[in-house]
C-alpha cells in the first residue's frame, strides 16, 4: 500500500509523542499512537489517531520513553506487531540503542534517536545506529528525517548522547548552586542568558523539560559512567519526587 509510507506510529512518553507527532503532522504524515498504559494522560489533538494494534503496512515506528522497563515492554509490543520491513526509531538517551536492539527479534532495524523534550522542534536530531543496524534501514531513516526537514548528526551509541548529556549536566550544576543557596533561581537564569548568551536559563529549562525526565537522564548517565562527577544534586532528586521548593 502506497499509503503506508505516509503513516507513522508513536508510543511512549505522552509529551514527546505530542511534540514529535506535531512535527510529523506538519510534514504531512498521518499519526497513529498507542496511549500510555491504557489511559490518555495528555489530551491529544484530533489528528492523532488512537490505535491498539499497529497496521502491518506502517513503515516507521517510534518508541519515546525514557523509563527502561516501559521501553522494553513497548519495544516488544512494536517488534511483534510491526510489519517485517518496518524500521524502529527509539529514544536512546537512557538505554543504548545496542541494548534495546538486543531485546527484539530483528536488531538490524532499530536506530537510536535523541528525543530531548523541548529540543525536538529544533533543526537537528542525533542518530545512534548500532553495530547491527542495516544500511538500508539507515537510508530509510535518513529519508524520513529529510522529510521532516531535520539535519542529522550521527553519534556513537552512548548513554546521554551529546546534547541531552551537556544540557542535563548544566541543569545539575545550576541545582547544586541552588542547593548551596548561592543565588536565586531567577538570578541564575538571568545570569546565564545575559552573561553567556544561553538560549534559556537552566532552571526554567529544567521546568520545561520536566524535572522527572532530567533526573531519569542523569541517573542513567550516573549508572553508566559510575563517577562522582555525575552524582545528582539533592534538590533536583527531591523535586523529581514531587516536592515543592521554597527557595531563598
Amino acid at each position, binding site marked *: 500500500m502506497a499509503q503506508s509510507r505516509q503513516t507513522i506510529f508513536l508510543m511512549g512518553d505522552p509529551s514527546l509523542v505530542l511534540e514529535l507527532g506535531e512535527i510529523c503532522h506538519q510534514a504531512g504524515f498521518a499519526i497513529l499512537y498507542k496511549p500510555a498504559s491504557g489511559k490518555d494522560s495528555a489530551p491529544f489533538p484530533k489528528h492523532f489517531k488512537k490505535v491498539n494494534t499497529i497496521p502491518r503496512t506502517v513503515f516507521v515506528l517510534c518508541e519515546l520513553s525514557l523509563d527502561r522497563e516501559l521501553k522494553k515492554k513497548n519495544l516488544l509490543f512494536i517488534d511483534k506487531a510491526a510489519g517485517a520491513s518496518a524500521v524502529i526509531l527509539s529514544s536512546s538517551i537512557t538505554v543504548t540503542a545496542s541494548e534495546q536492539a538486543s531485546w527484539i527479534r530483528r536488531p538490524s532495524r532499530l536506530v537510536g534517536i535523541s528525543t530531548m523534550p523541548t529540543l525536538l522542534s*529544533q533543526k537537528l536530531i542525533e542518530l545512534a545506529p548500532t553495530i547491527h543496524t542495516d544500511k538500508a534501514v539507515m537510508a530509510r531513516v535518513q529519508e524520513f528525517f529529510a522529510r521532516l526537514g531535520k539535519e542529522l*548528526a550521527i553519534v556513537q551509541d552512548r548513554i546521554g*548522547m551529546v546534547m541531552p548529556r551537556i544540557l542535563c549536566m548544566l541543569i*545539575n550544576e545550576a541545582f547544586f548552586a541552588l542547593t548551596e543557596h548561592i543565588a536565586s533561581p531567577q*538570578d541564575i537564569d538571568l545570569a546565564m542568558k545575559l552573561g*553567556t548568551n544561553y538560549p*534559556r536559563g537552566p532552571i526554567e529549562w529544567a521546568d520545561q523539560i520536566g524535572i522527572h525526565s532530567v533526573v531519569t537522564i542523569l541517573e542513567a548517565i550516573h549508572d553508566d559512567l559510575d563517577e562522582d562527577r555525575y552524582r545528582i544534586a539533592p534538590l533536583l532528586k527531591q523535586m523529581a519526587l514531587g516536592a515543592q521548593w521554597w527557595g531563598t
Partner: protein
Amino acid sequence: MKTIGIVGAGTMGAGIAHVAAISGCRVFLHDISDEVLTKALERIETELQKGVEKTKITAEQASGARSNIQPTSTFNDFSNCEVVIEAALEDLEIKRDIFRELETACTPETIFASNTSSLSITAIAASIKSTARVVGLHFFNPPHLMKLVEVIRGNETSEHTMQRSAELVSQFGKTPVVVKDTPGFIVNRIARPFYGEALRLLGEGVASVEEIDRIVRLEGGFKMGPFELMDLIGIDVNFAVTRSMYEQTFGEPRYRPHLIQQTMVNAGMLGRKTKRGFYDYSQ
C-alpha cells in the same frame, strides 16, 4: 552616584570607565603605567566614535563622556569617590595592597569593589579593617556591550553596600544579579559542564569537535558550540578558570580539567589568538 574611581586601566578598567562616564559619572581612571592610561583613553575614544557612528549614543553623550574621564597615576583624587572599582591584575597580593592604600586615600563611606573573576571577595576584604564596604562587581568582557554584572556578597559585606552596588549597576544601564562569594560565582561556575562535558564526549569518542559544535548550535539552540567558544575565549584562559575552580573546591570532580585542554595549552594551540585551537584559523 556621581564620582567613581577605577584602579587598573587595562581591558576591563577602560571598559568600565567608558560605561561609568556614559552614565554621567565623573571618573578618575588610575593605572601605575602612564602608557597604559594613554592607550586606555585612545581605546575609549575609538569605542565612543563607533557608538556615535552606529547611533547607539549621541555626539553630545560622547563628548560628555570624554570630559568625564580623568586619568591619574595617584590616588589623590580618590577622596572624592563614592565607589572605587578595582580592575588590576588577577593577583591576591596586588589587590590586597591596592585595597590597603585605598583605605587611607578614601573616606570611610567609600564602597570598594573588585572586578575579580576568580579570587574570593572575602579574602581580598580581609586585608583592610572596614570589610563591610567591600563587594565584588564582576563585569563581563567587553563591559560596554555585556549587560550583566554579578554583585558578589563577601562574608562581611553589609546590606547597605549590596544595595548601593546594585543601584550603581542599574545606573550604568546594566542588570545586577546577586551572588554569594563562592568559586566561579554564577556564570563561570554553571558554564563549566558546557565545556567539561563537551571535552569528555570528545575524549570518549562519542562525536568530533565539528559535530559536537553543530549539535549544540542546531539541536540545543546555543549561539556557539563549546569548542568554537573555547577558541574565542582562549583555551589557556578557559583551562585556568576550570583549574582554579577545581583547586578552590579541593578537587570537586565536576570541575576536573581535561587532558585535551592541557595538551593544547602545552602545544601553544590557544585558539583564535594563536590562529590554531580546536579549529585552524591560519587561512
